[in-house]
């Protein structure tokens, strides 16, 4: 496997966790750039071209709500979990735990065989 292919696979893997990562950080209001910085602190790098469209999609699915506010003479869009998003988050966490468990098992079995 070439480096480029490896990078693509890793990118795909990370892409799968972005939705949950973003939702998990939006229990409190945040604007896009602060969210990126927060995710980066936890080791998850995400570019703006991925984050903003994702936020819009999640909002259109009803999981987030947003509002514009003027801060330091500049409009900023703040996002926060909607009621639906808050209700969904624990179920997604459960799902994530089961995926991790399943994958750990699968990978261990793969290594043994």
């Amino acid at each position: 496997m070439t480096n480029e292919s490896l990078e693509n696979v890793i990118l795909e893997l990370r892409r799968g966790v972005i939705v949950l990562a973003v939702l998990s950080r939006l229990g409190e209001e945040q604007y896009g750039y602060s969210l990126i910085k927060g995710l980066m602190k936890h080791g998850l790098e995400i570019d703006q071209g991925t984050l903003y469209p994702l936020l819009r999609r999640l909002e259109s699915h009803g999981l987030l709500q947003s509002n514009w506010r003027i801060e330091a003479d500049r409009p900023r869009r703040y996002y926060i979990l909607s009621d639906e998003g808050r209700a969904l988050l624990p179920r997604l966490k459960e799902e994530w735990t089961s995926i991790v468990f399943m994958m750990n098992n699968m990978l261990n079995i793969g290594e043994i065989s």
Partner: protein
Amino acid sequence: MNLIETYVSEVGRQLRQKNRADIEAEIRSALQDMLDERSKQTGKPINDELIFAVLQEYGSPEKIAASYQGKRFLIGPRLFPAFIKVIQIVLPIMGVLGLIGVGFSLGRPKLTPGIDIRTYVQLNASFIINTITHAIYGFFGSMISALGSITLIFALLERFVPDLKTIETRWDAHNLLKVSLPDQIKSTELIVEIFFSGLCILLFNFFPQIIGFTPSLNSVVETGNWQSVTFIPILSEAFLRYVPFVTAIGILTIVLDGMLIQRGNWEVWSRWFAVIVKVLGISIAVVMLNGPFLIAVSTESLVTAGFTTPQAGNILLTLMNEGVRVVLVLTIIFGSLDLIKMLIRLFRENASILKVP
């Protein structure tokens, strides 16, 4: 900051109208956050170098626009600007060619110089109706066919041409310097327009008699007898009756151009002003096209001035009159296309007023 606006506008023009203003505001805000942070980190003020670096990192406008368009399209955001550009070039050319074709067909019956439009129409009424009907059918047929072919080609390109990687590797933020914002004025063009408008006003009002030509110049050069130079003014009385209207349009153009140069940008009021000037210009061209001939030269005066035969004079006269008509028709066609573009831009601007506090 102009670079940011150019970048945002480049992304925005590839987005759907519905969310464009909102996404543009979000990108603008995100870029500003990035710039502020980079400026703090480096301890340097926000300058063009920093803006270029941030834009380079943010990604090409095509990629960013594509990231907002999640659904599959027959022609996606990557190719849509090129598709529109091709349509904008091909369809007007076909329209003009179609009109020229109609003109040639209508001109097939022998045109007698000096004959007025009404007599021509009376003599060839059924022929004209047939020609125009066929031309309209043919015109729409070929338009639909061309539109279909272009759409098919672009749909195939969208389906089979590899992903955005090729575009991304070519992305260079410095190319933004070559892009002009839609509202930005082009001073040189305006100055040239002011000069020619002023020149036309001056000539038509004070020196209409000097607009003409000297058919005898060849023989003068051959014989060296400069005393025999004959000058024929060409503007008819009918044209001179239009001069006040042409002058009014010229003055309005100069006023508009002067104010645009002073303000530096197009605004909603100046776009409406330009629409009014354009409508007046097209209207006067339509009136001229349907009115008497604008050229006052007679075959006799050409023969007197040194043309060899009345037939040669006749041909020249026909060419001059038809030439003026072609110019008027082209003015009306291109003016109308321009007017449509101006109105579309105005309505788009009205529709995209930002809904942020």
